[in-house]
């Protein structure tokens, strides 16, 4: 599914986070956006999925214009720090991603497939508090896969993982995205990670008109 931001501007407390930003990601394409910390990348992802409001401009999903703050089930997001619910174990956290119309059997079957695909088969009963940073991010990614989304927004998802694991996780993530034909916007400040993940790497400064670059987040 194609996702698009047109002349998007976000202002918070009279402070411009980014201005007249344009971004188009074609269906099934994985785009990495490279930019320094605090430039507004996270806000751009939050606005793309409806968690933040656009002060100006428009966003489109497959050429359909989306109203402000509307959250569509086709889009999901992986946060920089994986958000796992501490009162649920690994399997229960992943199962939260299951579409409501699935039967219990389908959920269990898909859960096993997801656990296998993210390499955490034996982890289903584990408490999320006992996971390492990389394992936790895999669980969050597994839950996103469970949702069968058309678009995934990845907010520096491997930032809390050491360099060697980061590359391994980036490669694994790309494989899953491409296998399923999921459109992805991946933001990072790590050139190597972007190179592994993306079909196309874009610099943050190239998304906005030169004179209107956003200020510090």
């Amino acid at each position: 599914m194609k996702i698009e931001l047109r002349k998007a501007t976000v202002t918070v407390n009279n402070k411009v986070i980014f201005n007249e930003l344009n971004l188009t990601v074609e269906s099934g394409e994985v785009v990495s956006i490279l930019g320094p910390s605090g430039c507004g990348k996270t806000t751009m992802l939050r606005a793309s999925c409806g968690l933040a409001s656009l002060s100006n401009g428009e966003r489109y999903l497959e050429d359909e214009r989306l109203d402000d703050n509307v959250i569509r089930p086709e889009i999901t997001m992986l946060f920089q720090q994986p958000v796992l619910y501490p009162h649920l174990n690994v399997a229960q956290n992943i199962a939260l991603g299951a579409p409501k119309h699935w039967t219990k059997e389908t959920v269990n079957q898909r859960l096993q497939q997801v656990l296998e695909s993210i390499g955490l088969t034996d982890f289903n009963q584990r408490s999320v508090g006992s996971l390492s940073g990389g394992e936790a991010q895999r669980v969050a990614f597994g839950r996103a896969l469970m949702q069968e989304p058309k678009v995934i927004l990845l907010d520096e998802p491997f930032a809390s993982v050491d360099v060697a694991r980061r590359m391994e996780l980036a490669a694994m993530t790309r494989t899953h995205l491409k296998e399923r034909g999921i459109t992805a916007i991946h933001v990072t400040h790590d050139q190597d990670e972007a190179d592994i993940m993306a079909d196309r790497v874009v610099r943050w400064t190239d998304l906005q008109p030169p004179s209107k670059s956003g200020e510090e987040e």
Partner: protein
Amino acid sequence: MRTSPMSSRFLGVHPVQWMALSLVIALGIGPIALAFSRLWAVTGITPWAALMTFHEQPGATEALQFSVLEAAASTLLTVTIGLPLAWAFGRYKWKRVRLKRALLFLPFVTPPIVAAVGFLALISPEGFLSFFGIDLRGETGFIGWLAAKTGWDHPGHFVALVISHVWFNLSLMVRFVEPVVAQLDPRWEEQLALLPAGQTRRGRLQHLWLPVLGPATTVAAAYTFFFSFTSFAMVKWLAPSSNTLESLLGELGGTAGIAGYRTETSLAVLGIATFQMLLMLFMLVVAGRFERKHSQVLSLHNETMNREQHGPAPKRWAWFVNGMLLLLLAPLVSVVIGSFRVRSNDPTNNGYEWTLEGWKQAWSGDYSTVPFTEALSNSMVYAVMTLVVALPLGYAVATSLVTMRERGHQRAAGVLDSLCMLPLSMSAVMVGLGMVAGILRWFPQMFQFPYLPVVPHVMLVLPFVIRLLVPAIERIDPVFAEQASLLPMGRFGSWWHSRGAFLVVPATMAGSLCLAFSLGEFGATFLVVRVGSWNSLSILVDQVASRPKFDPLMFPTAMALATMLMVVTLVVLSVNERARAWRMRHED
């Protein structure tokens, strides 16, 4: 397709939450405002004019003098004993520290009527103190000599009352001061020891302990004064020949507000209540301002490491702390012992025999009192209803206040928060008076409403529920809600995973607090149920203990009832302690 929360709500708060907020504020202000307007209507005198007649009201000036005197003495003694107790308990490594801490806090959560009869048993001619030749009740021996020499009326009663207030408020002192000592960065002390100013005990007191512990001690002392000043059950039982303003109001309040009947009583109540309310508001505002002004950011340190560093307490401190723990248990143990000991004419057993007759009588009741089971079921009904009403209301108010603050409406949230906390500035008897003179006199048909005591219980417990839930809600990371909005969940699932599941422990704590508070509440219930409705367990203890003692079973029966009330309350409160322990384990 879902949308984020709508901005069309007023100050970000849903209309249903506004209704809950309005109800809580109306509950806090309404009855007392109605009571004042009723008393005004009946006497034809404004509260301000009635206030000017305060000194003319029979017993009012004496009650004010007695209240100030006993509260000041209680505060002084509480600080004298409580400060070293809290310091030693916070500083050293103690075996079974959690159990000891629970014992230290026990008095504060003991129903006042249980403590009152416990002290009564302790100071009675057959009680623990009589072994040491101290007779505070009959005022013979040294106390009698003191009374005769000084002309002081009932010094024994005064001393007993002050000791009981110290017993209650030591917990408060420990609660405020102990964490400061236990978590104080040890480098502060070490650095001072290397400086000339820290070479003497006086220097260490002046430069470290006084600045560090002063604010917490003063705040605890201010609350001790406040609670002693508004004491009711203790005064009623331990100093029956004297009155505090609170007990005077309790005495007069039952017949106030009736048109054309004892107007002078209504006038006295109006004057005294106005005076008491203004005084209490003033005291709370001063204590609150002091707390805010002197609260300081201390560099907190790991408590366990600190205790390890200081090691086990030296012998004299160990004797002091353990001895105080035993003394704190004494009134409660006296209640249990008193329930088995029945006066007899058999001189071979020192005039007493050990039987279960008191328990049997308590269990079955008699012609003028209800059996234990009935009083307990009444109390449980009140308690469960208090829980069912206060918890959802408190949650709705807490979420509203948090939402307002999150959206930047700090001032509005502050004002509404203060309004919701108003019942804290009223004593239990004032709340009861609000019910009697404010609700029942205007709407006498409510006499038929058997659940009337639930209303003051809800009023009194709501501020605590809100205070527990607000920080718990504020601690929840909003990212859980954002993540939930991106997952295929229904409205309830989304609420549960981003908020509900995180509130199970604080809600359990608030719930057990509601139950325990309602079970033990005495002041407001005393005013409300004596004009109709059913007896609660705490009222039954009071009724039985008040009866003439020519029947040797009366005292043991009252003690048996008090023991049962104590056990039920402690069982409920143990849920609270377990939840607190669980939270500490999981948040560490």
